[in-house]
């Protein structure tokens, strides 16, 4: 009999006043008891809406059914069949808009905590050394994957399972892409990412670090080396700036830079050789998940932190949970404000920012009400650090060095729904083709492209 409690079983968290001074994980995960309780809230629908909401089609009622019976290995096998990075997705997926958003339990109460159960199952497997590394016999075909972020890792995993020899090329010295350089330790511990990567390596995936495709090797050279297909999952790593005066002052950073120093280069550790700016008062420009991550990192480094966003709270693009966590940790939200310019001192260092108040006008093309400046409402804000988190676009390195590879005016590689591009044998997916989006959408694209690559090579 299902547990008809209207509320999700709560997951223990670090106290906000403690966690805003450390980089340990915020959410602590379910205990066996809590997971079992939550699993019984799933009705095991015959026609599960939740699965339709999942970009990689995780068989949700099936894996939760195994938890109900105490069969954790079965739960993990069901989950990992569809999802190459379950410990990651259980932590960073926007479940409220996907699986959980479709859950029938959500009509009269809270949905089943699918994400929490996914995390519980994946963590159980990592702790118990259980991995689903079954692969088909080698089929003699080679595929190259560019980028070791969520799209690339998923594509590589799917192809390895089918018996392909897969090489993943990564520009950085660590695999994981945005999972390693972008998402902070307190939301996604890097040890978890590395364990998921290690599982792929156990499946025979070869990961070549320190290789910049477009510089060290070109896509044409990859074909010359005997790869029969190439998947581009190079993400959207190029930071955008506001294009306002003062943006090159010392103390203005892209969120990419700030987060990379902290996450990838571990600048939060006192003995790190990579420096981080010592900030007293920080303004983070933007209202997305990356803005929340940057703000929460700066807070943990000891600064007073303000989120500056030009629309109102309802329009914040970040997940509600991230906004909630940020507020709990003492981050101040300056909504309906837009920066006009950044002022520096005589040493070229940030000393303040001039802002203007905004109000919401008519809806724009995105359907959101357009923010318009309130005339004469400019004001000064004293800050020593400005972190720009208004978005990223795809890196041009690959598109500019690959003749015949089409991209749109934003630099996103043009793809058909099956992931194919204008170049034969070249497929793409994730942020490289959509522009900045979510981990799980990139994984979905990696999975789709893997299927298409399999078809393409099989039919050759």
């Amino acid at each position, binding site marked *: 009999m299902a547990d008809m409690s209207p509320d999700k079983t709560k997951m223990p968290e670090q106290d906000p006043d403690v966690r805003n001074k450390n980089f340990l994980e915020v959410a602590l995960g379910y205990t066996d008891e809590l997971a079992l309780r939550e699993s019984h809230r799933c009705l095991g629908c015959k026609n599960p809406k939740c699965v339709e909401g999942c970009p990689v089609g995780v068989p949700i009622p099936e894996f939760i059914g195994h938890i109900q019976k105490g069969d954790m290995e079965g739960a993990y096998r069901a989950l990992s069949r569809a999802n190459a990075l379950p410990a990651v997705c259980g932590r960073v997926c926007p479940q409220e808009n996907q699986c959980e958003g479709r859950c029938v339990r959500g009509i009269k109460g809270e949905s089943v905590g699918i994400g929490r159960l996914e995390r519980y199952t994946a963590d159980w497997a990592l702790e118990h050394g259980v991995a689903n590394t079954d692969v088909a016999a080698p089929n003699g075909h080679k595929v190259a994957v560019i980028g070791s972020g969520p799209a690339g890792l998923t594509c590589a995993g799917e192809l390895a399972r089918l018996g392909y020899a897969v090489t993943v090329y990564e520009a950085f010295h660590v695999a994981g892409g945005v999972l390693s350089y972008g998402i902070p330790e307190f939301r996604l511990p890097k040890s978890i990412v590395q364990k998921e990567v290690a599982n792929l390596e156990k499946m025979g995936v070869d990961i070549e670090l*320190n290789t*910049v495709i477009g510089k*060290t090797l070109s896509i044409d050279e990859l074909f010359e080396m005997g790869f029969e297909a190439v998947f581009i999952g190079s993400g959207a790593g190029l930071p955008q700036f506001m294009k306002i005066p003062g943006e090159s002052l010392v103390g203005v950073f892209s969120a*990419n*830079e700030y987060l990379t120093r902290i996450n990838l280069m571990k600048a939060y550790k006192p003995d790190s*050789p990579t*420096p981080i700016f010592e900030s007293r008062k920080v303004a983070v420009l933007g209202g997305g998940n990356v803005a929340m991550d940057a703000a929460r990192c700066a807070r943990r480094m000891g600064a007073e932190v303000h989120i500056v966003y030009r629309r109102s709270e309802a329009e914040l693009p970040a997940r509600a949970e991230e906004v909630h966590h940020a507020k709990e940790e003492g981050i101040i939200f300056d909504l309906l404000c837009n920066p006009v310019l950044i002022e520096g001192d005589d*040493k070229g260092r940030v000393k303040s920012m001039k802002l203007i108040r905004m109000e919401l006008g008519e809806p724009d093309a995105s359907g959101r009400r357009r923010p318009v400046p309130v005339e004469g409402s400019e004001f000064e804000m004293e800050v020593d650090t400005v972190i720009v988190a208004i978005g990223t676009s795809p890196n041009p390195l690959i598109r500019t060095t690959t003749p015949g590879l089409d991209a749109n005016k934003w630099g996103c590689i043009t793809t058909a729904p099956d992931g194919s591009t204008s170049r034969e044998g070249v497929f793409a997916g994730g942020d490289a083709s959509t522009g900045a989006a979510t981990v799980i959408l990139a994984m979905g694209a990696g999975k789709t492209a893997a299927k298409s690559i399999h078809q393409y090579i099989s039919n050759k």
Partner: protein
Amino acid sequence: MPEKYEIVRKKALTPDISSISVYSPLVAKKALAGQFIILRATADGERIPLTVSSTDGELVTVVYQKVGDSTMTLDEIPEGGCLADFVGPLGQPTPVDGVKRAAVVGGGLGCAIALPVAKALHDAGAKVDLIGGFRSKDIVILEDEMRAACDNLYICTDDGSYGYHGFTTGKLEELLTAGERYDRVYAIGPLVMMKMVCRVTKKYDLPTIVSMNPIMIDGTGMCGCCRVTVGGQVKFACVDGPDFDGHQIDFDETIARAATYKEFEQRRRAEHKCRLEGMSNG
């Protein structure tokens, strides 16, 4: 065969400056004058960008100066040891096409980068004057190599202990006053030197290319840390450069940005020295 990222050859050029030749066949095959690599000495180390000084078969040679904690750690790896990471070639090559007469000005460690630029110009058929500036005679590096890569080599020392007595700009101005004219001047060295070279060449309206070496992390356009303002436009040195039109660069901004982590670096350097002394005492 050497191991991946092995330091196959290591040579101390001065007590503070060393050259290492690293086994990295893919980078060696592609790297052109003006491009750079990023290395990490150890598995928890900082990413250090260094411009390629030369390539030889499967080896890439870079020259570094022990200026901080990270380069001091790099210097502790002996010949035969391996670097943790080595990636490249990054950035755009220095443009040398269509230049018949060139002056290449290098300052200190910058001479290690001026060398391949002079060589590329020389190999492409240009007549090259190479001006290399150093504080004094005992820290002159790569003199023979530089002499072989140009038509006229002018070594300058600040203290007059060797060659021309004075700064590189003094020598350059002397040549220009004597009537020398160049299709292009290349300046590679400390920011202040490049700024002063540009001030001289501006007077003579000589196109001048400078090689920027701002703080960077990834070297592929991802962090935006290396941004420089060129002709009022923000450019990323790692992907758009590192070479830019010297007359368009906002040097004052670049000089301020280079000092972003000055206090941190001074502290780390002092700590590193303490650790070394602690070891030798203990």
